[in-house]
């Protein structure tokens, strides 16, 4: 009963916070809401026995990506932003499309069939600790994708510098 209670609280908070994120007119408010949202998602991960990902969620998303967003927001003219139109003209159409998508996704959940279970049951993970198990798989089976991801990050760093750099005159 306890687990369901926690889940219901987290789920309700996550959905409400998401809606708030996309409806605030002040981007800084959206940002703060999103920070809270990310903490809730991290808590959800903890209930799912994914402690390492919960930490990552806080450190990378809340700590790094959101700060990056915040920097950019500070470049904007917030006063003007507050009075400007929030939504595009035909916004009801967008909402309609999203709701249509929700309907088909929820309908498709009915036909979900779980696949065969793996070896990493809660007990195994608990004995080995989540981080250790994740690292074992990451650096053996997923070593090559891991290296590729590091390259992607490098490319992103260089690309961001090139894009954001001021053009030198001549």
């Amino acid at each position: 009963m306890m687990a369901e209670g926690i889940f219901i609280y987290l789920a309700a908070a996550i959905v409400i916070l998401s809606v708030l994120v996309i409806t605030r007119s002040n981007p800084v408010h959206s940002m703060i809401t999103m920070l809270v949202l990310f903490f809730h998602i991290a808590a959800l991960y903890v209930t799912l026995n994914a402690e390492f990902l919960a930490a990552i969620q806080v450190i990378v998303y809340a700590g790094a990506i959101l700060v990056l967003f915040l920097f950019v927001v500070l470049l904007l003219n917030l006063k003007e932003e507050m009075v400007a139109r929030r939504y595009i003209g035909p916004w009801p159409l967008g909402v309609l499309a999203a709701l249509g998508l929700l309907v088909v996704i929820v309908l498709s959940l009915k036909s979900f069939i779980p696949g065969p279970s793996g070896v990493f049951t809660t007990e195994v993970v608990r004995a080995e600790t989540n981080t250790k198990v994740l690292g074992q798989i990451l650096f053996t089976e997923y070593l090559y994708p891991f290296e590729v991801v590091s390259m992607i990050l490098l490319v992103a760093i260089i690309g961001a510098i090139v894009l954001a750099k001021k053009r030198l005159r001549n």
Partner: protein
Amino acid sequence: MDNYLLIPFLPLAAFFVNILFGKTLIRDKSHWVSLFAVVCSWVIAVMTLFEVIGGRTVNRDLYTWIVSGDFRVSVGFLIDQLTAVMLIVVTTVSSLVHIYSIGYMHGDKGYYRFFAYLSLFTFSMLMLVMANNFLQLYFGWEAVGLCSYFLIGFWYEKKSASDAGKKAFIVNRFGDFGFGLGVIMIFLTFGTLHYAPVFGSVNGIVGKTVDFLGLQVDLPTLIALLLFCGAVGKSAQLPLHVWLPDAMEGPTPVSALIHAATMVTAGVFLVARCNPIFVLSPPAMNVVALVGAVTALFAGTIALVQNDIKRIVAYSTVSQLGYMFLACGVGAFSAGIFHLYTHAFFKALLFLGAGSVMHAMAGELDIQKMGGLKKHMPLTYWTFLLASLSISGVPGFAGFFSKDEILWRAYASGPLGHLLYAIGALTALLTAFYSFRIIFVAFHGKFRGTHEQEHHLHESPKIMTVPLLILAAGALAAGWVGIPPLLGGGEHFAEFLAPVVGHAKGEGTHAEEWATMITAVILGLGGIAAAAFVYLRKSTLADTVAGRFSFIYRLLWNKYYVDELYDTIIVRPTFWVAKNVIVGVTDGKIIEGIVNGVPRFIGTLSSWLRNIQTGMVHQYAAVMALGAFVVIAIVLFW
């Protein structure tokens, strides 16, 4: 013998080296590459000749070139007596022409290109003569034609030169079309293109007929005549002779090598090589002999009145090639090849001599503007005289033996042979006359050119005169390998070739043989005497005769109007069709309609479709969401 592969492939390697590095690296040293290759080929060819004399022949496939169903062609080499003779002719003349060109082409801006083409030509010609199947022969045949085109149009900035190159190429198309059909017929008949099985089973087709354009045609005759079509084109026989005189636009060494000694004789080689097919068809043989005889006389008469020194020699070449076909046509293939072999020496010599004269005269070709060159360029004069004596059939010289052999074989071949003999003997008279006309008009008498030209006159450098001397030795002595038994010789040449081309048929008494020989010699000497009388004693006589028979003179001067005839019946209608049908209808309406219509349609469609591309991110995103919706819906509810 085992290194015979080097004979064609050394010149090929030289071609690649020169064409790749000639422009930038080798430049004015490029003759070393080509000369080295061709001289090595010559040495190996001589070694090969001795091995063939020793009785060893080669017929070997190198590798399989094409396999398609029953169709199987290899690259292979056949070296027998006939090939050995051709190898010697080609590599010898080619080597000498290479040496001569070092002097003649000196300072030309296409120097490396010239030697590259010479090497490529040598390779192609050697592939042609060394082939052991018809497709490789055809390959060499077309490759020499291509090189001929390159070299005739070597000075392509000159419109007349590039036109002459095109003319040679296009006229040869007519003959090669027939040749190609002949090769196809051989494959359809025998199921193979290799010489050995074709010639081995050739007797099986005697009397068979084939449906050709609705007519029942004798199969051996059809094949022989189709092959002969190719020979007519390549060897400039009537009616496809028109390209050869124009080909003189090329550099003179090229005229000597390609348009006198080697490529144009490929037709004779083809007929001799295919003799097992030709001998099966008396009608085809008669056609060959008659075409040869008529061409010999026809070209000889034109040569009488021309003034361009190279064109005279070119018509002389056409005429002598006619002799060779005449010999083949009466079954005396070895006599034809014998004349091919001696002709290579004295005709190459005549051309190189003419080149030497041009060199001294700063490119002047008109013999009427020369005169008295004898004292300025003695070496050229004496070698030219020797070649002229040889071509006129003066006893003892190379040309005498081969021409005598042909005329005697023609006479001995039967009733038609008497007529052929008469034409041949008359042509011998003409040959002697026009050859010595050059000598007397250009080398004797007083100089008639401009003052600067006279001041400029000089003997050519050693690099050009040494090949002349070597060829002169050939023009004198090359015939001694084929002295007839009548004069105490052994007819070694004919005996040597007998395994490939057989013995000539026809019998005659010694008295007849003496009579034909003496008549021909008297006619030849008469021609020389007549030329001497007309051009040395009575220099006005030539103009008087030309005035008296002005119709004939103009007919000959205009080469029987053959070019004009072709212009009217072929060139003009072709242009008319090209202009009115191709440009006007097919190209202008149909093809351009399609070509322009398709993009116009696409343009219209896309200018309508591009309205979708609004540049608004939201629309794209909405379409994506819609797409996801549709895909999931289809998966769910299908």
